[in-house]
C-alpha cells in the first residue's frame, strides 16, 4: 500500500460510504428508494458474511499483537459499510420495524462506523494504542450482537433457544375458537415469518385485525367465504407451488388444522365464538374435538425408553414386541399360543409395563395372574382378550385401565358384572362383545350410560340369516 495515490481514492470511498450510511440512518423516514436500489438490499444476506469474518480476523491479529495488513482492514471496512447500507435498503421493505430489526439496524450501523474509526486510527499509526485495543474488543462484541439479532430476524427468536419441551398451554374446556385454537395453529406454522420483526409479504398474523387487514396481496381471510380466502387457497396449493404456505422446509399444517381454519372462516371468522356456541352437528365441533386430542407421538415421547436389547430379550417365537412406529417407545405385543403355555410369558413383561400400548392375548389360556399383570400396563389403549377362559371374576382388574380405547372381549364367559366395570371406563371408544354371558338388559343399560361407546355385538342376525340361505345368486 505504498501507492499513496491509490490509497487516497480508497479513503475517499470509505468516507463517502460512511457519510451516506449516516445520512440514511438519520433521515430514514424521509427516504423513498427506487426499485433497483431497493433490490440491492436483497444482497445483504450474501455480503454480510465478509465483514464478520474479515473484521474478526483483524481483531484477532490486533489483540494478539500481530501486524494487521492494511489491505485486510481496508476490505473489511468497505465490506462493513456495504453490508450496513444494503441492510438498510433491505430493512426499508418492512413497513413497521420490530424490536429485533431496530437493534439489528443500529448495531449494524455502529459496527460499520466503528470499523471506519479503526481504519482511520490505523492509518494514523495509532493502531497500537490502548484505546484502539478497547475499540477492537468493542467491535468484536458488537459484531456478535448484530449477528445474533440478524439471525433472530431471519430464523425466528427461538432459533438459538435450547431444544426444551415446548410448553403448550392446556386448551380450556370451552375454548374461544380464535384465541385458543386458530391463533395456536397460526402461532405454530405462520407467525415465524409474519410477525412484527419479519413481516413477509407485509402480512402480520399475530392478531385477528391484522389478518383481516391482510398483506400486500390484499385480505388474507374473507369472513364467511373460506374458498375465496387467500389463506385457505394457499394452504391447498401443492407443496411444490411457489405460493404454497407454509413454504418448503417449514412444518405444514395437518389436514385437521386446515379444516378448522376453513370452517372458522366460513362461520364468520369471529374472535368471540366459543366452542359451546357451536351446534352439535357443526363439523367444526368434531374437528376441534379431534384437535384437542393429544398427538399420539407427543404422548408416546414421554414414555420411558426401551432398549432394542430388552425387546429382543423379552421376545420369543410366540411373543412379538413391535414398536408402534419407527423409533418410539410405545409397544404393541402379540402373543400366540405356544406348545407349552406358562403365565410368566405375560408377567415377565413387567419391566416394560408402561410402554405397552397395544396387547393381544386372544385365544390364550390366561387366568387371574395374567389379568392382574395386564392391569399394571397402565398405558394400555388396545386390549384383545377374546377367546380366553376369563369370566367376571377376572375382569374386575380392567377398571384401572383408564386409557383403554378398544376392548375385544367376545367369545368369553364374561357376564353382566363385567359390563358394570366397563360402564365406568370413560375413555373406552369401542368394545367387541358377542358370544358372552352378557344379557340384553345389561347391554341396553350400557348403551344408555355410555351413548358414545360403539358396541359391536356381532353380525346382524338378519344378515346372518340371509347369508345362511342357499344359493342366492340367480344363475341364468
Amino acid at each position, binding site marked *: 500500500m505504498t501507492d499513496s495515490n491509490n490509497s487516497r481514492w480508497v479513503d475517499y470511498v470509505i468516507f463517502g460510504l460512511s457519510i451516506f450510511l449516516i445520512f440514511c440512518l438519520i433521515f430514514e423516514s424521509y427516504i423513498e428508494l427506487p426499485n433497483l436500489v431497493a433490490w440491492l438490499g436483497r444482497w445483504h444476506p450474501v455480503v454480510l458474511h465478509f465483514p464478520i469474518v474479515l473484521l474478526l480476523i483483524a481483531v484477532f491479529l490486533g489483540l494478539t499483537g500481530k501486524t494487521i495488513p492494511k489491505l485486510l482492514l481496508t476490505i473489511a471496512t468497505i465490506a462493513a459499510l456495504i453490508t450496513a447500507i444494503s441492510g438498510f435498503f433491505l430493512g426499508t421493505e418492512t413497513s413497521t420495524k420490530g424490536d429485533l430489526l431496530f437493534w439489528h439496524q443500529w448495531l449494524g450501523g455502529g459496527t460499520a462506523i466503528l470499523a471506519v474509526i479503526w481504519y482511520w486510527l490505523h492509518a494514523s499509526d495509532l493502531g497500537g494504542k490502548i484505546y484502539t485495543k478497547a475499540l477492537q474488543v468493542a467491535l468484536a462484541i458488537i459484531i456478535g450482537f448484530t449477528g445474533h439479532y440478524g439471525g433472530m430476524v431471519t430464523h425466528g427468536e427461538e432459533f438459538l433457544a435450547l431444544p426444551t419441551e415446548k410448553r403448550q398451554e392446556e386448551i380450556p374446556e370451552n375454548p374461544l375458537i380464535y384465541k385458543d385454537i386458530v391463533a395456536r395453529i397460526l402461532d405454530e406454522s405462520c407467525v415465524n415469518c409474519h410477525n412484527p420483526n419479519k413481516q413477509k409479504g407485509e402480512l402480520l398474523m399475530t392478531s385477528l385485525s391484522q389478518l383481516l387487514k391482510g398483506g400486500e396481496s390484499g385480505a388474507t381471510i374473507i369472513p364467511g367465504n373460506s374458498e375465496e380466502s387467500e389463506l385457505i387457497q394457499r394452504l391447498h396449493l401443492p407443496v411444490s407451488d411457489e405460493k404454497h404456505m407454509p413454504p418448503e422446509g417449514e412444518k405444514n399444517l395437518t*389436514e385437521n388444522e386446515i379444516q378448522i381454519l376453513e370452517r372458522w372462516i366460513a362461520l364468520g371468522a369471529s374472535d368471540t365464538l366459543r366452542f359451546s356456541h357451536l351446534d352439535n352437528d357443526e363439523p367444526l365441533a368434531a374437528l376441534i374435538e379431534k384437535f384437542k386430542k393429544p398427538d*399420539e*407421538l407427543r404422548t408416546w415421547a414421554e414414555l420411558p425408553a426401551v432398549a432394542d436389547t430388552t425387546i429382543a430379550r423379552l421376545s*420369543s*417365537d*410366540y411373543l*412379538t414386541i*413391535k*414398536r*408402534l*412406529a*419407527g*423409533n*418410539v417407545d410405545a409397544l404393541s405385543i*402379540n402373543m*400366540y399360543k405356544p*406348545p407349552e403355555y406358562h403365565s410368566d410369558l405375560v408377567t415377565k413383561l413387567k419391566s416394560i409395563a408402561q410402554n405397552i400400548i397395544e396387547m393381544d392375548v*386372544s*385365544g390364550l389360556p390366561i387366568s387371574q395372574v395374567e389379568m392382574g399383570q395386564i392391569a399394571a400396563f397402565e398405558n394400555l389403549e388396545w386390549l*384383545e382378550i*377374546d377367546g380366553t377362559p376369563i369370566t367376571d371374576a377376572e375382569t374386575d382388574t380392567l377398571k384401572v385401565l383408564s386409557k383403554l380405547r*378398544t376392548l*375385544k372381549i*367376545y367369545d368369553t364367559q364374561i357376564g353382566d358384572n363385567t359390563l358394570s366395570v366397563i360402564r365406568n371406563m370413560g375413555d373406552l371408544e*369401542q368394545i*367387541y362383545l*358377542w358370544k358372552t354371558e352378557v344379557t340384553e338388559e345389561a347391554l341396553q343399560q350400557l348403551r344408555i350410560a355410555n351413548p358414545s361407546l360403539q358396541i*359391536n355385538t*356381532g*353380525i346382524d342376525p338378519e*344378515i*346372518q340369516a*340371509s*347369508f*345362511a340361505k*342357499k*344359493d*342366492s*345368486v*340367480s*344363475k*341364468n
Partner: protein
Amino acid sequence: MEEEKKKSENPLKVNRRHFFSQLSVGIGSLALGSLLIPDLFKRGTNETTGLPLSLPHFAPKAKRIIYLFQAGAPSQFETFDYKPILRKRMGEDLPESIRKGQRLTNMTANQDKFPLMPPKIGFKQHGESQTWISDFFPHIAKIADDITVIRSMHTEAINHDPAITFFQTGSQISGRPSMGSWMSYGLGNENKNLPSFVVLTSRGKGNSQGLYSKLWSSGFLDSKHQGVLLRSGKDPVLYLNDPDGISRSDKRHLLDHVSSLNKLHHVETGDDEIESRIAQYEMAYRMQMSVPDVMDISKEPQSIIDLYGEDCQVPGTYAANALQARRLAENGVRFIQLYHQGWDQHGNLHNEMAGQAKDVDQASAALVMDLKQRGMLEDTLVIWGGEFGRGNFAQGKFDPENYGRDHHPRAFSIWMAGGGIKPGLNYGKTDEFGYNVVENPVHINDFHATLMHQMGIDHEQLIYKYQGRRFRLTDVAGNVVKDLLA
C-alpha cells in the same frame, strides 16, 4: 465376533462394483487403508441394504392386508360401474371421441365395429352410500357401507401377464419383488411361526389365465420374504411334514447339524442366502406345528360356516381360502394374497360371470363382516379387484344374449374395506361410456403408495439397492390417495 469378521471380509462379498469403486481410490491407499482400518471401504449396512433404520415410518393404520385378487380381470360393467347409456345406445359404434384411438389387443383391433354392449345383469344402489352394485353380488351389496369402491383405477398393461405382474410388483416386467415381499421386508414377521406373506389360490369355472409363482416372488430381496403358497388338501405346504418314521426330535437333531454345516459354509463363502436358508429351515420346523393348527377349521362354529357359505368346508375353494385368510390374519400373517382364477370373459360373459360371482360374492362379504365383528376391520385392509378392466363394446359378433368383452386398461373398478380407508365412499368417475377416467384417477403406483402408507411405510423411503440402482415398489412414481383415508 471372529466369525462375523471373517464373513464380512470374505473375498466373495466383493463384487465387481465394489472392486472398481475401491480401485478408484487408488491401489496404494487401498492397501494402506485396508491395513489400518479394516472397515474403511466397507459401506454401512444401511447403504447396502437400503433399509431405513426405523420402520414403520409412522404409526400404521393397517397391520395387515388381505388381497382378494380376481385374476383374469372382472368386467367393471357387470360389477360396479353402472353405465345406463350402454343400453340406450346398444349396438351403436363406440364414438371415436371417446375411444380416441387408444390401443386394443389384437383380439379386437381388427374389428370393423365396436358395438356398445350393455350388461345383461341388473344394477341397484345399496346402503346409505348409494353404491351401485350389480345383481351378481347380493352379498357384497349388504356391506356396501363398509367398502369403498374405486371406479377410476387405470393401468398401462393390456395383457394379463404384464398387468398382473404390474399389480404385484409395480413393474410390468417380471423380476421385481412382489408387494407382499416388500411389506415383509419392511415390517418383518408379526408371528415368527408363520411366514409374513402367504398365498392361497382357487379357480372358478370361467375362462382363466395362468398364475405363476413369480407373482409372489421376492425378486432381489432376500428369499425369506417370498410368498408361501398354502395348498389345499393334506399337505398345505409341500414337503413340510416329516417322512414316516422320523420323530420331531430326530428332525431337531438333523436341523441342528445341517445348520452348523451351513454356518461353516457361510463363513467360507459369505453368501447371505445361506443364512436365509438356515432361517427357512427353522421356520419350516415351526410351521410343522403352526400351519396344521391354522388350517384346521373344524373348530369354527356353524354360524361362521353359514356366513362364508358351505363351500368353505371344501378345501381349495375361494370360500375356504377366505375363511383361511381370516385365520391367518388372526395369527399375525401380514400379507395374505388370494387369487381366484377364471375372470377372463372374452365370450359367454354373463353365464361365466354368474358362476365366478357366486364363487366369491358371499365369502368376500362374509370375510369383511367377520373381520368387522372381531374388530379386525380397523387394522386389516381388504382389497377386491382384478388386473385391469374390460371394454364397453362387444368382442366379436354382436349378440346381447351371449357376448364377451376384451381387455381394457384405461378404467376399471376395485373395492377396498377397512385398514383406515373411508368406508362407504364412491371414489373416482369414468365418462358416461365407462371408457376413460374423468375424475380422481388412481394409477397402480398410487394404489401401491396408498397401501404402503396405510401399513406405516413411506413408499419413497422403502428402498432396496440392487445392481447399482435403487428400487422401490412404486419406482419413481406414485402418490398416496389422501381422499381415501379415513
